[in-house]
């Protein structure tokens, strides 16, 4: 169910946000926007599919404690 919600949400964003931005902004800005949108889509899909992703804070904690 969550996967469907995410896909529908992104379809909505592409239709009502990306298309508007495409008309107003430069090609370069639209490409950067699209790349970030793609990254965020993959990230959110990973979360809803319950893929185990290590927290960056664990690495940070190890650096702080010098382990």
């Amino acid at each position, binding site marked *: 169910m*969550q996967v469907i*919600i995410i896909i529908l*949400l992104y379809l909505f*964003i592409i239709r009502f*946000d990306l298309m508007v*931005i495409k008309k107003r*902004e*430069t090609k370069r*800005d639209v490409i*950067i*926007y699209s790349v*970030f*949108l793609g*990254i*965020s*889509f993959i*990230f*959110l899909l*990973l*979360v*809803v599919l319950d893929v185990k*992703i290590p*927290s*960056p*804070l664990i690495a*940070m*904690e190890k650096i*702080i*404690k010098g382990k």
Partner: protein
Amino acid sequence: MERETISSREIIVIIIMFLIGNSILMGGDSVAGKGNWISIVLGALISIPIILIYIKIINDYPGKNIFEISQELFGKIIGNIITILFICYAFYLGAETTRVFTEFIKIVSKPETPQLMIMLVASVIPIYLIRSGIKTIGKWAIITMVIGSVFILITFILGPALDKLQNILPLIEHDALFYLKDAVYFFSFPIGEIVLFLAIADTFKKGENFYNVYLYGVGLAIFIIVYRVLRNLIVLGKEMLKFSVFPSYISLRMIGVGGFLTSVESIAFINFLLFGFCKAVILLLVICKGVKHIFNINNYKILVIPLCFILLFFGCINYKNVIQLFEFQKNYPYISVWFQIVIPLLILIVSRIKKPFKKWLKN
């Protein structure tokens, strides 16, 4: 793109809401127990020279944010590294804020709803506000501050039971060094976090008295936090406070006028929503401005949706649960010191050396 500005009154309100942010629910209840308020006041005193550094940077470079300033001072490569570091810091704080936000909603009213879905629904407001511009954020902050203040006033009038006043006694339980250590922690969270206002300093009107802006902003925020800490301590007592994850919510649950007016905890819920949103909005704004600077984009507002969703992703994966979040908070001063003290100090020193040097070269 036209430069957007906000008035000093709006900056004051945003600073107050940003500092209270998630600390209205979770912060300020540190290990000092009955002497929490002493640590807070000491933390505020420690913060004065650091805040002066921030103000001097703003005054030295009117109409510029920290990303532009660092690029001007250190060149493109080091400037971009500083920008990326600040983006990471804002991501870290943003992830923490959204996580506390959704954990609270989940615990209080929506235990079955997936965390990400709560985050997605809540993200509509920050996205809308940033798309509308900093002026809208300023006006929205003033309106929500009025509502929030009324609620704080209601909890003050209903007040904690005076017969429990002994809960704050003895006032001093530990030695000075203990309070000093706690004060350093309190400085790093939340006072020092206003370093991120340097990232939106390009929206401040030129020629304003920023000493007054920061004095009123930080001063009023400290006042509200001290009031909240004392209220929680009086109502809950030291032992119960130690085991409470969200002490403000629990203490307001216990406040009431006889059997007539009880369960005013929804006030904590609404206030947390209002102030928490403000913090999330500013952090997201900082991220957008940083990314805009790195990629040299015309309009930072277009990036708000993807960057907000990436922020939510970190909010989901950074911590397994709220206990882990509080545990990691102990490491926070080691991270924050770089952003709150080292980098701003470095910027100020280099700018003070470079400016006379440039003048001398011209002559």
